[in-house]
């Protein structure tokens, strides 16, 4: 174990320190976690990958050679070349631009769907875990029944009802994936509630609200962050999958899953139409999974 970091004292010195004195800073749990994360090569690699993909995707309006809807039929079906690094598709879109905007769609859906899932799952888990009693009973029965319900079938069904589109797919993925977060939040609270420091706080006269805010929630944050990170690739996969089946996102919005499906009839001739979107999907999934696994190892060293 390395010694805590020390560096030169800053300008606004406490009275008992002179300029140039070594000041020792106590390490916090967060800084330990950060260090564990940084020493994990795969996690750092994942982080770089995610950052690069975010620039690639969100930077599309500035960086992409053309708009996603710009098509030039005269230059359709070109193999990757100097002018079109990923070639052009069957109606003459520059494929690099399409893949960039498709990546953006994947990222937007991933983040937003997880936000929706968190917005439903975490409050319900909090209520179930903190209140207990009938609220807990009711919420857990809903969770159980929804778990028994085949998730993909439910998502397909909802999609055919609300229709395709970015907003709708975010809603559908969110509404079918809050169960894990809700169960995790509740389980965390139930475990933490039995810890000795909670009993100590209670015997010292802390109210329920104080215990919840000061003792339970801060300790439940780490596993939730990990679960949220790992939910992102799952949501991105769901979007790609539903779009692949033709019920996710429709033209003109580019979606990687849809692009893979569209390439199928031509894949024998134009292999690059199948290769690049699948590579993009795989890289997105790998990046977020590495970050999620790294966060889990860093934030929760007890659980391997």
């Amino acid at each position, binding site marked *: 174990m390395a010694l805590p970091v020390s560096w030169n004292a800053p300008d606004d010195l406490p009275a008992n320190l002179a300029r140039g004195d070594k000041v020792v800073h106590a390490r916090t749990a967060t800084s330990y976690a950060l260090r564990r994360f940084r020493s994990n090569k795969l996690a750092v690699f994942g982080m770089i990958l995610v950052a690069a993909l975010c620039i690639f995707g969100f930077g599309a309006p500035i960086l992409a050679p053309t708009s996603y809807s710009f098509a030039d039929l005269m230059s359709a079906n070109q193999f990757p070349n100097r002018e079109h690094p990923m070639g052009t598709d069957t109606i003459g879109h520059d494929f690099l631009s399409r893949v960039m905007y498709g990546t953006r769609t994947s990222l937007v859906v991933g983040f937003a769907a997880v936000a929706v899932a968190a917005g439903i799952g975490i409050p319900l888990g909090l209520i179930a875990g903190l209140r207990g009693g009938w609220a807990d009973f009711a919420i857990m029965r809903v969770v159980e*029944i929804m778990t*028994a*319900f*085949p998730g*993909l*079938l439910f998502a*397909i*069904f909802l*999609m*055919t*009802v609300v229709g395709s589109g970015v907003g709708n797919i975010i809603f559908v993925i969110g509404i079918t994936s809050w169960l894990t977060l809700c169960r995790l939040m509740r389980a965390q609270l139930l475990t933490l509630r039995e810890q000795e420091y909670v009993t100590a706080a209670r015997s010292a006269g802390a109210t329920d609200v104080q215990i919840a805010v000061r003792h339970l929630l801060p300790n439940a944050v780490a596993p939730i962050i990990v679960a949220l990170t790992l939910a992102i*690739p799952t949501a991105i*996969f769901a979007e*790609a*999958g539903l779009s*692949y*089946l*033709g*019920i996710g996102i429709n033209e003109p919005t580019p979606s990687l899953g849809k692009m*893979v*499906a569209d*390439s*199928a009839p031509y*894949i*024998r001739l134009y*292999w690059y139409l*199948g*290769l690049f979107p*699948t590579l993009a*999907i*795989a890289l997105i*999934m*790998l990046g977020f*999974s*590495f970050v999620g*696994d790294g966060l889990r190892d860093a934030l929760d060293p007890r659980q*391997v």
Partner: protein
Amino acid sequence: MGRYILGRLAGLVFVLFAVSVIAFLLMHAVPGGPFAPDERGRLPEATRAAQMAKYGLDQPLQIQYIKYMWNAVQLDFGVPFQSPTETVTELIARAWPVTIKIGIPTIVLAYGMGSILGYIAAIRQNSWIDYTVSFMSTMGIVVPNFVVAIWLLLFFSIYLGWLDPGGWGKPQHYIMPVVAYSLAPMALVARYTRSSILEVMRSDHVRTARAKGLHERKVMTWHVSRNALIPFVTILLPEIPNILTGSIFIEATFRIPGLGRFFVTSAQSRDYPMILALVLLIAVLWGVTYIITDVLYTVLDPRIRLGGRSIS
């Protein structure tokens, strides 16, 4: 034991009831219907009414539900609207075997190869074999199976030209779907086998077995492998119903006439009898697998008592 299983079966019946009621209400609550006007045009009002009456859709919902379930218990799930010349039972009997024919080799490959790889990775911990297996299993879990399917297609059918890019009927049509479909469960099996074997190898009874001079092979088979099976059973058996109901993505990619596409077409065409039959089929498979898993658990680990109480 018998009493416990009976209790669990009763619980399964309750879950099936809840799932079927929800599925039924949900599919009737949404706008549209099997004979509603859509982009293909609208039926004349009299024809529509006649069709609705023919399939009993003009009756109150609770009557429709009771009739459906009464017939369903006798394995009569009605007539699928999307293919009215046959019954739902016939349609499933036609499509499901195709899915199962992909599913069984998938299970054999995934669990066989997965446990071998996990075992090797565990006994050679921190060697290059271990790192390769770990990396491959992360890839296998993370990369979606239709992406793997496209890669296989690009490489073996288009680049090398060895395999048909899709279709059904010849033995070679099994190869790519089975490989693409088995990678994710294989990765999961390898990962869990590795970690559970490592954990058991560190436990006291294994040290004792070694200390008393038992042959290494005996230690590995009797003391390590047997105990390492426990997480195998609880975590991995529930993957089996997933595999047996098939992957929509794999079947769509390789044009396999299995059950998968009916998930989409049934939802799109509001094929009420077929939707309910599929929901019930999946729910039954899941329920039965969970019961089998819990029973097997107690056989493998006598410390665990049925009914949720454990002594540790």
